[in-house]
């Protein structure tokens, strides 16, 4: 819904009626979207005729002047005004029916959760590369580095696709704004892509030491790339997100690690690493630990969310999250019981974790919409900061 299709309705009307007849502009005044009317003075440096400058007209026309009305005549008492506001705003319970909407749901479409998923894989793969490198498995590390760069590759295009004005993607790098997770994330994504790509390039050029250093750097960036998406959601006014502020980034890191490990593991299998290879089992362990962490953290988080947690159970996001949990649990069980089940059983949990990670991302982003539109929850939680 965030992208309107075709030209807006007023545009069609305007185009139909556009024209100048005998020097007279007859184009219908039906408005333009997305910006205030022109900010350029018709004549540079000129003043506006018909008005007195410096807001004098407003002062002249003020209706409730102290000399002629009793609008604000009573003498003020210290602290009375603040106390009145406390009386009306301070109660932890909402005393009246809520007339929503209070806040606005996000306008993001499928690109964003999908990007979160890819970013997670890239982060996880970077961690895997670091692990392989630390374990001395250079070949696997090379594969993991390539997975990382391969996963981060679609990230940029997806983010650009989601923009209302994709052609202005570069405006993201106009400034570095530390307090905006989106800005930091964009810079981090760029840095991560650069270091990751450089690491792969170094591999190809066989600059071993350089590749190693870049892998460490990529993994370090990954700690933010994998978590900032959680920070980004947690730093909004949406109750289900912001009430999960300490949990959402770790949860995202967990799924990131697991999904990155899973893709690396699958990639290793595809490139001929034997099933009994320690990297594969190590990655399997990492997947399981991460997904278990995710399950535990989610459970704790949901338990403490209270009314804000309603959004995690309702509608399509609720179903997605339930499916994700089921996939995760099944994967964990399969992994635990099916150590010798052949290739299918070996890979199935990884695929399940990947699917679960995807469902988690869509679920969480979707739950943000549900939560923002749960006027009662928004209003209630506003009274309990």
């Amino acid at each position: 819904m965030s992208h309107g299709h075709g030209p807006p309705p007023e545009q069609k009307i305007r185009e139909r009626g556009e024209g100048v007849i005998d020097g007279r502009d007859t184009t219908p005044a039906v408005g333009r979207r997305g910006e205030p009317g022109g900010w350029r003075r018709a004549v540079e440096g000129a003043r506006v005729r018909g008005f007195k400058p410096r807001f004098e007209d407003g002062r002249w026309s003020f209706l409730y002047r102290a000399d002629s009305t009793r609008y604000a005549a009573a003498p003020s008492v210290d602290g009375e005004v603040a106390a009145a506001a406390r009386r009306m705003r301070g109660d932890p319970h909402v005393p009246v029916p809520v007339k929503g909407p209070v806040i606005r749901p996000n306008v993001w479409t499928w690109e964003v959760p999908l990007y979160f998923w890819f970013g997670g894989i890239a982060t996880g793969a970077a961690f895997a590369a670091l692990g392989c490198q630390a374990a001395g498995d250079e070949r696997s590390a090379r594969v993991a580095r390539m997975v990382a760069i391969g996963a981060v590759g679609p990230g940029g295009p997806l983010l650009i696709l989601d923009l209302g004005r994709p052609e202005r993607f570069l405006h993201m790098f106009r400034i570095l704004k530390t307090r905006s997770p989106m800005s930091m994330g964009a810079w981090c994504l760029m840095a991560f892509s650069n270091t990751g790509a450089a690491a792969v390039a170094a591999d190809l050029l066989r600059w071993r030491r350089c590749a190693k250093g870049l892998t460490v750097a990529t993994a370090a960036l990954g700690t933010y790339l994998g978590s900032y998406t959680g920070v980004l959601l947690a730093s909004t006014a949406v109750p289900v997100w912001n009430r999960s502020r300490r949990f959402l980034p770790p949860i995202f890191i967990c799924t990131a690690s697991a999904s990155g490990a899973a893709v690396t593991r699958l990639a290793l299998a595809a490139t001929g690493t034997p099933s009994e290879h320690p990297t594969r089992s190590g990655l399997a362990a990492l997947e399981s630990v991460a997904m278990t962490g995710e399950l535990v953290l989610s459970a704790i988080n949901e338990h403490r969310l209270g009314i804000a947690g309603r959004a995690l159970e309702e509608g399509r996001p609720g179903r997605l999250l339930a499916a994700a949990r089921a996939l995760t649990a099944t994967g964990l069980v399969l992994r635990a019981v099916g150590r010798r089940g052949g290739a299918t059983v070996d890979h199935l949990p990884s695929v399940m974790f990947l699917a679960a990670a995807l469902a988690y991302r869509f679920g969480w982003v979707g739950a943000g919409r549900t939560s923002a539109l749960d006027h009662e929850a928004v209003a209630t939680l506003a009274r309990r900061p």
Partner: protein
Amino acid sequence: MSDAPTEVAVHRSGQPPGRLGFFTDTTVCIGCKSCEVACKQWNDLPADGYTFGKGRRSLDHTGSLSSSSWRHVHFVEIAAPHEPDREAARAALGAGAGGQLPNIPATGALAAVREDVDLLAMADGAALPEAEIDRWLFDSDVCKHCTNAGCLDACPTGALIRTEFETVIVQPDICNGCGYCVPSCPFGVIDRDPYDGRAAKCTLCYDRLQDGLEPACAKACPTDSIQFGPYEELVERAKGRVTELHARGLETAYLYGAGDEGADQLAGGLGAFFLLTEPPERFGLPAQADSPIQANMPAATAAGLAAGVTAAAAAVVSLVFAHRRARR
């Protein structure tokens, strides 16, 4: 406590003009929606409504602020507190068919008997003349131009800035429509236009301020419910107004967004604040709010980075461990 925001982006020659804002006094609002139209006229915004306000039971068909509605007049109907008087209701209804129908004059049996509707209860509780509407409140909502502005903090491109008037505006030539400001506003103000793709909201008529003209809505407001001026002056007047209303017996009058102390402040104080006479939720306003980034970002980032480092370490540990075990 901390010092004033250091975020002001525009500095022009001469004295800094000081903070300008809106004071919207709902006790003198007549709900005419002039502000909505004056804003669209000046800012050349399109009509985006056309939905009959089903369920809102009032004249509000705008619904909420949006990317092309930068002012929105809330209509709130409040029923009078009513002592149930079933006897009176019964007597009034008695002449109808079996005491179940209102005796609409001259109809008698014309209206079909409806078993499923307890008209007695309705007459008792809801529809008696004594239970007529008590108050109909209007409130012209607008961007709050917060001191701690969520949208401003969220914007990754610098499209959102704080101006020399300490207002918050979107620079339409910069915004790339990332959409992050939308859920970051605790008041549900800023919105991304579905067709245009950019975020847009009230600018407090930044262009008019440059030339010393009142913002369009405040200028058009027939009853000066929307007042514009230097912030300190407005707050002083608004405080006086609250005291006056208290003196007149309207004890529930309070300021939403100004005159608060310490942690009671809404988003550090609102550049556009309101005088309300009912709890804020009646008008779709949160009772407490702050920039969600300032409230959550440090903690969330710390948690995220810690988790990230832990995860990276876990990866290292699990692989090193796996290899060691394999070597053994």
